């Protein structure tokens, strides 16, 4: 119990840090099939076709935090993650998004906060494991039933983020740059 209290207090620092981080660098991911960031920025004409094609409205237009990249598409997994329907890579008119198979997507990488994750605090929870479309490879459980992310298989869709019961989410997706 005492250990849990300590962990909670720690998480206040953690939470502040994370909130500050996301304030200045919102965890916007590029849609699936996006070219490396600098090439993506050069190719994207902000036409909004990927945004319009997304049946889940996962893809948003970035604001001024993106600097000159204002209007480029981003996915915020905390709001709506990517459901990997693979429609948007095909509609891009400039090749900023390229058709790609689900397994080869590399939007980002899920990172687990072992200080706030319920499973690591001894509470039985496998919400992220169940939500993962690559369950068993991208997120699997170890012998202590704690979730482990394998960066090699994680595509960064963020489906694990909104289901996390911890407040704020103990799992987040860091964009690949």
């Amino acid at each position, binding site marked *: 119990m005492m250990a849990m209290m300590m962990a909670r207090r720690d998480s206040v620092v953690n939470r502040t840090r994370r909130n500050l981080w996301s304030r200045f660098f919102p965890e916007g991911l590029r849609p699936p099939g996006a070219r490396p960031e*600098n*090439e993506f*920025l*050069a*190719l*994207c*004409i*902000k*036409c*909004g*076709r990927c*945004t*319009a*094609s997304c*049946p889940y*409205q996962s893809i*948003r*237009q*970035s*604001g*001024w935090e*993106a600097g*000159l*990249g*204002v*209007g480029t598409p981003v996915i915020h997994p905390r709001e709506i993650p990517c459901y990997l329907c693979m*429609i948007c890579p095909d*509609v*891009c*008119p*400039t*090749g900023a998004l390229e058709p790609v198979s689900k397994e080869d997507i590399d939007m980002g990488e899920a990172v687990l906060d072992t200080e706030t994750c319920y499973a690591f605090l001894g509470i039985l929870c496998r919400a992220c494991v169940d939500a993962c479309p690559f369950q068993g490879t991208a997120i699997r459980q170890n012998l202590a039933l704690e979730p482990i992310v394998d960066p090699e298989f994680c595509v960064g869709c963020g489906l694990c983020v909104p289901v996390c019961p911890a407040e704020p989410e103990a799992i987040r997706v860091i964009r690949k740059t």
Partner: protein
Amino acid sequence: MKWGRLRRCSQVGFLLLFVGLPFTYLKGQITVMGTLASLQIGPISLVDPVSGLATMIAAQEVGWTLFSGMILPVLLALVLGPVFCSWVCPWGLLSELLDKLLRRKVGRIPSWLGPLRWSFLGGVLLLGLATGMPLAATISAPRLLTVLPMEIIFLGGATAGTIGLLGALLVLEVVLPRRLWCRALCPVGSTLVLLRLRKTLTIAWSEPTCRPALQGAVCFVECPWNIDPRHMKHLDGCTNCGTCVEGCPSGPSLDYSFGRTEPEPPSGLKLPVIMRN
């Protein structure tokens, strides 16, 4: 021919199309989809030529998907001229509305307009090369105005980026001389003007029938682009809107024509033209 009414219908029609499309996205319709930066109509992909060009410059590569999308819009401009500006672009509609609301006056086309147009287009493209981003696409007014309804209707809210850029353009529209954005600064329009060939659709003036003395130069006064169609130069920026053709009081003195016969300088080798008509 009521070119003015026809053109207004076309402008409003395109505006309604781009306001209506986002509602269909909500139902999952994506066969016809996009904005004026890039539009998908079934299997046909259309890309705004300057956005495509800016992308090619910024990325320093030419992709087939992008190139193929630019073909039809470029062909349209090569044949019909920059009709996009006057018949399609919603910013043009807004700008003409402001003409009426603010009672903006006609002035002669300034001599610096052409140089300003080419240097601004070149500057934006070069800045795009330096920053590695297609800035010409970012500041495209038709893109912004057609992305806005999508953001509001489909995503449930406009973004600060789109509103900020549109606000800045609106300020420029009001502060700068009449329609300067459309006439000289908009990269979309400048590129389309540049695509004008000798045989591209244009407005031809036949001097013998012109009677400007009777009612003043109606064509020049009414031109939304401040161009005098009687003394138009090749790259003056005429968008074939047809206002002068419709407004011409002396009948067929001004009309659409593919290519224009330039008045030839008198030459001793040719027979003097006395018996015209």
